């Protein structure tokens, strides 16, 4: 509990620092005397609009006041409004959140579904042909950024064979399951492959390590069959790197979604972030960043708790602190 509070505090500190940092950063060069709104909106806004925006968002006050107002709104669930698009940020994100959620969820899920059995079997049959093939493939996919993978995939599956649409629509599973599959498959593949490769490499290394520990030998010496040794004894003891990597990769997935959404012209949160950053859409950037940071941090917290759930030693250590 105490540990949990401590983590929450840490989360709060990081959240404040990051969001405040982003705000400062977005406002560098904007808070020069004159007209922040005009700088932000470009040269064409009317005086009234500039004045209104300045007033509404306290742009002429100092950054702390601005931050305070913004934060207060966030806590009331008001993510603000896109000054440029005249739309509430909440509305702006509606319909986009799910796209990115599904992208991330599927990639993570598939990466794990692929990586875990492969890694377990690789570690078990270490140095076998399977292991070597697995290593080679994971090397290849780790070294294949979306930049390289996406064009080739698009060329083959979309342009050459036309199996999948060129631009991916936001078809949700409850709308059309097959449509959902068609539209999400390729983006998910592009995100999944490198992820699965990273996971497999990490997990394999850990299991190899674990398999050398005494308690694994003891398990064998008790006559426990290899499958049980692998899946019950070795795997559970080898999840630490994998889980922390899932945490790290969550952040990377947001970046990956940004790229993949761009390749497949999907309009998700990544695309939203990109446009709003490029067009200096202040409040959208601030709010969406805050949300992303919060989601990533909370997910990491959950991963932490998961680990405590798996490992009694950590539970124990945390019960103390």
């Amino acid at each position, binding site marked *: 509990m105490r540990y949990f509070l401590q983590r929450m505090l840490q989360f709060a500190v990081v959240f404040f620092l990051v969001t405040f940092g982003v705000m400062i950063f977005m406002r560098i060069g904007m808070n020069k005397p004159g007209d922040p709104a005009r700088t932000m909106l470009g040269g064409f806004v009317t005086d009234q609009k500039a004045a209104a925006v300045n007033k509404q968002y306290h742009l002429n006050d100092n950054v702390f006041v601005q931050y305070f107002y913004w934060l207060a709104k966030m806590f009331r669930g008001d993510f603000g409004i896109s000054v440029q698009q005249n739309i509430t940020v909440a509305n702006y994100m509606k319909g986009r959140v799910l796209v990115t959620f599904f992208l991330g969820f599927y990639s993570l899920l598939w990466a794990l579904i692929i990586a875990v059995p492969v890694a377990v079997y690789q570690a078990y049959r270490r140095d076998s042909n399977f292991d070597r093939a697995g290593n080679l493939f994971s090397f290849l996919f780790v070294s294949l950024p979306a930049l390289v993978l996406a064009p080739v995939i698009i060329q083959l599956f979309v342009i050459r064979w036309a199996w999948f649409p060129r631009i991916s629509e936001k078809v949700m599973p409850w709308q059309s399951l097959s449509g959902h599959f068609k539209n999400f498959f390729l983006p998910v593949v592009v995100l999944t492959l490198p992820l699965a490769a990273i996971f497999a490499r990490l997990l394999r290394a850990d299991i190899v390590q674990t398999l050398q520990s*005494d*308690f694994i030998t*003891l398990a064998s*010496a008790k*006559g*426990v069959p290899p499958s049980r040794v692998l899946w019950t*004894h070795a795997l559970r003891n080898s999840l630490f790197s994998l889980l922390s990597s899932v945490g790290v990769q969550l952040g990377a997935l947001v970046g990956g979604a940004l790229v993949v959404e761009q390749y497949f012209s999907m309009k998700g949160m990544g695309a939203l972030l990109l446009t709003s950053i490029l067009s200096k859409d202040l409040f959208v950037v601030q709010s969406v960043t805050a949300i992303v940071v919060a989601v990533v941090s909370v997910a990491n917290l959950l991963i932490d708790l998961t680990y405590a759930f798996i*490992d*009694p030693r950590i539970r124990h250590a945390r019960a103390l602190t």
Partner: protein
Amino acid sequence: MSIAIQASTRTDDGPLLELEGVRTHFQTPRGVVRAVDGVSLTLERGRALGIVGESGSGKTILSRSIMGLLPTRGTIRQGSIRFEGREIGGLSRRAMRDVWGKEMAMIFQDPMTSLNPLMKIGAQIAEPLRIHLDMSRSDAWATAERLMNDVRIPAAGRRLRQYPHELSGGMRQRIMIAIAMACGPTLLLADEPTTALDVTVQAQILDLLGEQRRDRNMSLLLVTHDLGVVAGHTDDIGVMYGGKLVEMAPTAELFANMKMPYTEALLQSIPKLADPSHTRLNVIAGRPPDLVNPPVGCRFSPRCPYAQDRCREEEPPLIPTVEDPRHTYACWYPVGSPAYHETKARRQREAEVAA
């Protein structure tokens, strides 16, 4: 080469374990490591055999070879290992699984790392019971609790549901013993079971082992580097050096009448409580042999103060002493032989001259 001994020690059932010319080598980038290089020995039912030797002499690999629990990669095994008359040296891991835990069990050196940190104690003890004896979960756990009582763990019922990190080292080693005992094996291999423990706890564990062995009529192979430990707790002692068994005898016989200069030197280099403080210790010069390129001839010859040319050329066989056929040793010029005395006297004179 050790036919005579075997014949004389054979009981009606035949010995529990017989090793003949067991070799275990590893392929490494440096070359072939001859970790165990031709060991033959016999272990009778109900007896305790201690294996002593310096670090790296191949004790662990010997016990693992018997158990068949060697890394599969890069391992070369030769020789014959007969367990209850059955050749188990060539069995696959699958076949060995029926032997492991049920007929042969093992205890490891480090109680801190030998238990699965993520599994409850009870589950770990119950695991072999459920696998080998097809017990139900509740039966297995009940048996586990009984076993824990046997190894004198207080509040066994509560401990069952605890995790290894909640127990002290001594407790964990007791758990290890309980696991080993679970399916009533006939042979227990204990690899330095007390090295990581405090002396007071070491004594407890050694006593416990001895007691369990007698109660269950198990044979014990106790591997350790501490001559003190084997002296009080085994019936026979084998001394290993550089992957070979260099001397083997019933405990009392060995201490009373050791033949190998190595065994003697080993004993003499240990500080003894009985000696007054600041007693000068005897030292074995040099270092243990490199098992990739072991010395030609007797492996101890480079460090042996009594070594002759023959020792450096010809490998001495393991032969029985005249007094006791159960006492075997591998030395051209054993302790007590004329050559030995001669060298010893010469050394003494030299030392006096130097002083």
